[in-house]
């Protein structure tokens, strides 16, 4: 028997059994998109990780291969096993659509400069292509800036799909700042969904 109003006194606890009474599409929220499938136990993201540069360096570097660590400050967490780093070549723990971001803290102590922040990926474990570039510009000396590059990679094969990170400057005496206690220059990896 269908009802169109809630009875006086509301609805008793356990009065609605959703295990077999729901069909069709459920609206997510006012104005939201209705979902008819795709629900999984737990839901949400299934993979995240974060790494950082732990020491300063100057000049053009490709790939950034040393002084890298997984973030380890108090409270840090990741989902899944995380990325694997081999001398600056990062491998994914699982296939899927991955969001990749590189943010670098730049410092110049002697000249106006720019920093170019680059993400290079491969899908054949051999040839790397530039897929994202960020630029930060500084004019005075003793200037700090931060730039970010972001891309999305369809990781169809964890053996062949990998990522590296690169920086270059107009004035190669200027520096990228690293830090091991907190994030100054870092890489983010977030698995958005299945490939």
């Amino acid at each position, binding site marked *: 028997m269908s009802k169109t109003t809630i009875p006086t006194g509301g609805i008793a606890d356990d009065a609605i059994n959703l295990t077999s009474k729901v069909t069709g599409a459920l609206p997510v929220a006012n104005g939201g998109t209705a979902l008819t499938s795709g629900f999984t136990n737990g839901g949400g993201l299934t993979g995240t990780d974060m790494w950082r540069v732990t020491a300063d*360096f100057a*000049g053009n570097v490709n790939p950034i*291969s040393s*002084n890298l660590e997984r973030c380890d400050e108090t409270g840090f967490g990741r989902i899944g096993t995380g990325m694997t780093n081999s001398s600056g070549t990062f491998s994914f723990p699982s296939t899927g659509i991955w969001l990749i971001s590189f943010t670098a803290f730049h*410092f110049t102590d002697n000249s106006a400069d720019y920093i170019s922040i680059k993400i290079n990926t491969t899908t054949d474990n051999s040839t790397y292509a530039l897929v994202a570039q960020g630029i930060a510009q500084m004019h005075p000396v*003793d200037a700090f800036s931060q730039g970010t590059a972001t891309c999305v990679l369809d990781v169809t094969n964890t053996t062949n799909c990998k990522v590296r990170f690169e920086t270059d400057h107009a004035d190669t005496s200027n520096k990228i700042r690293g830090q091991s206690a907190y994030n100054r220059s870092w890489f983010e990896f977030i698995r958005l969904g299945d490939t």
Partner: protein
Amino acid sequence: MPDEKGRPNHIEDALSSMHKNQWFTYTDSKNKIYANVRLTDKIGVNGELVDNPVTELPTESAVNTKLTEMQNAWDTLHGE
């Protein structure tokens, strides 16, 4: 790691100014003292890992001298 105003105040400021690229590392990244500084085996150049061209660590004295030079230059530039 310069201070908030940019004045060099750590051996890493000197080390990263002595050569380009990631030529040095630490045996303990949480304890950045001279005794923990080491040369890296490889550096990234044009998409390839090549042998680190720096084959000898600077002495602690040389690093400290470099840091002092940088601090003096910064102080002169900023009138301090």
